[in-house]
């Protein structure tokens, strides 16, 4: 995009390539291209910033739907349920959230190690709790995840925790039994703490393609999602699929993950996100 560049078909093809390779998907890409055709066809770009601003505004209105702020409980512990498919970054993202609340915002944090299935999942979260210096409730491997959630709720109330974050096992949205298990964990939280879970975050790996839409669809049907945590945005993937997700489900991105240590977290900025795609 530069001054004097004519908005012709070949220019639109270049934009299309940028959008598709950013994982925006065919439909969202076509719609934006159509929008640009109507507004700019055959005109010269007099002001590249304004042109990019036009694209930004169009996309940002999607990305801001649902709000990008974290919901907190009016009183008592704020409960955050974290879910997502295998390997997307849930446990590491929880460490980042714990760091954010505990060390940066100075709030008392409790972690619930409700992934009792995967090898060394509890150990992994435990190491993070030790490093950050926050509380953790864990059972032995193979224990019932709902039971861990139950005990964590009791502990949160007894210890006066301000934020409780629940780690769950990775599961594919197509595994009905495991989705039922997730619903059960949510019911336990809702029953034990007023208004819980106040946030249900789906962690989405930024390298994920169009399958992300099916993930959001089915997870949202099981446990109403309040936001997304877009992980691994420090790689080369742009995570453009969240634009389609926001359009279709109005579920906003609340945080982004930019690395493997607990400080690598940032609140989501629609502005930065769009600029990373269009330069």
């Amino acid at each position, binding site marked *: 995009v530069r001054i004097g560049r004519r908005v012709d078909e070949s220019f639109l093809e270049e934009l299309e*390539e940028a959008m*598709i*390779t*950013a*994982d925006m*998907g*065919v439909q969202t890409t076509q719609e934006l291209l159509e929008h640009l055709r109507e507004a700019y066809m055959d005109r010269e770009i007099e002001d590249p910033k304004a042109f990019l601003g036009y694209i930004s505004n169009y996309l940002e209105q999607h990305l801001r739907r649902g709000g990008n702020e974290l919901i907190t409980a009016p009183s008592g512990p704020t409960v955050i349920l974290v879910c997502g*498919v*295998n*390997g*997307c*970054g849930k446990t590491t993202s929880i460490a980042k959230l714990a760091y954010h609340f505990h060390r940066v915002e100075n709030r008392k944090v409790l972690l619930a190690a409700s992934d009792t299935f*995967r*090898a*060394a*999942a509890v*150990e*992994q979260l*435990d*190491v*993070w709790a030790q490093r950050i210096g926050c509380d953790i409730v864990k059972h032995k491997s193979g224990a019932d995840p709902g039971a861990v959630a139950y005990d964590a709720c009791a502990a949160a109330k007894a210890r006066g925790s301000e934020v409780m974050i629940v780690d769950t096992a990775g599961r*594919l*949205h*197509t595994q009905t039994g495991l989705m039922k298990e997730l619903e059960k964990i949510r019911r336990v939280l809702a029953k034990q703490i007023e208004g819980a879970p106040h946030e249900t975050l789906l962690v989405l*790996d*930024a*390298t*994920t*393609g*169009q*399958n*992300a839409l*099916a993930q959001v669809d089915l997870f949202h049907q099981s446990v109403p999602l309040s936001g997304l945590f877009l992980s*691994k945005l*420090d*790689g*080369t*993937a742009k995570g453009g*699929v969240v634009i389609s997700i926001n359009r279709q489900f109005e579920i906003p991105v609340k945080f982004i993950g930019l690395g*493997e240590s607990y400080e690598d977290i940032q609140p989501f900025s629609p502005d930065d996100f769009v600029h990373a795609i269009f330069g």
Partner: protein
Amino acid sequence: TITKSLQSTFDKLGRRGRLTEKSIRDGMREVRTALLSADVHFDVVKEFTRKVTDRAIGENVIKTVAPSEQIVKIVHDELEALMGPTDTSIRENASGPTVIMMVGLQGSGKTTTCGKLAQYLVRKGHRPLLVAADVKRPGAIDQLEIVGESVGVDVFTIRGGSPTAICRKSIRHATQNEKDIVILDTAGRLHIDETLMVELVEIQRSTKPQEIFLVCDAMTGQDAVKSAKEFDQRLAVDGVILTKMDGDARGGAALSIRAITGKPIKFVGTGEKMDRLEEFHPDRMAGRILG
């Protein structure tokens, strides 16, 4: 399914008179959309549709008895041919333990796949050794030890050691303990992390693996090409293992990776349990991508 809708698209185009070169090109737009929605990379789709269009026109499909069926068949056949034949070969080391190195992006399924591969090899009469070379991720060594125990395979590591030293020393340990295969589980890393990519090259230099497997998540989108290309250029990957195929991702990344690196997809992961490793079937993958 896409195959049915492609058929009806070409039928419609053909119905107004007969199938012309222009209508073939128009119909290919739908193939393009189908492949992009399946996460096949933009450049790979461009090249693929060009190839199929040329073939459809060249084979004079226009004049055949059932042109739309012919075109859909060409798309299927080209896709399957591109995916390559079934190949589960693991090159054997003539002088010492066979070394298999597992590499890939974070969370792609390497550690789990190491366990599955170990079990697969045990069932073929081998004595593999698992090597815990991920010293960074919390609980990674514990994870591989538990995985190893679940498949009855020893795990070698040096707590406090560096990945390169662990991998190098594991070979001697294997020989001393009569293990004929060494499986190196490395830490997930970004292809743009210079230090960590150099670390992989160092491990490769000192252990000279017979097989380097790039472990990729089947739900990866357009980025599959960037990361696969970089891993391949640095290491000359021998094969690819596609994980989480038990989900409903169409898996277009498989076509992209194959087209860009030319390397074979040897196995697919179809679940979290240790018996969930299958050989790759190009015809099934082609059908899945087309949808």
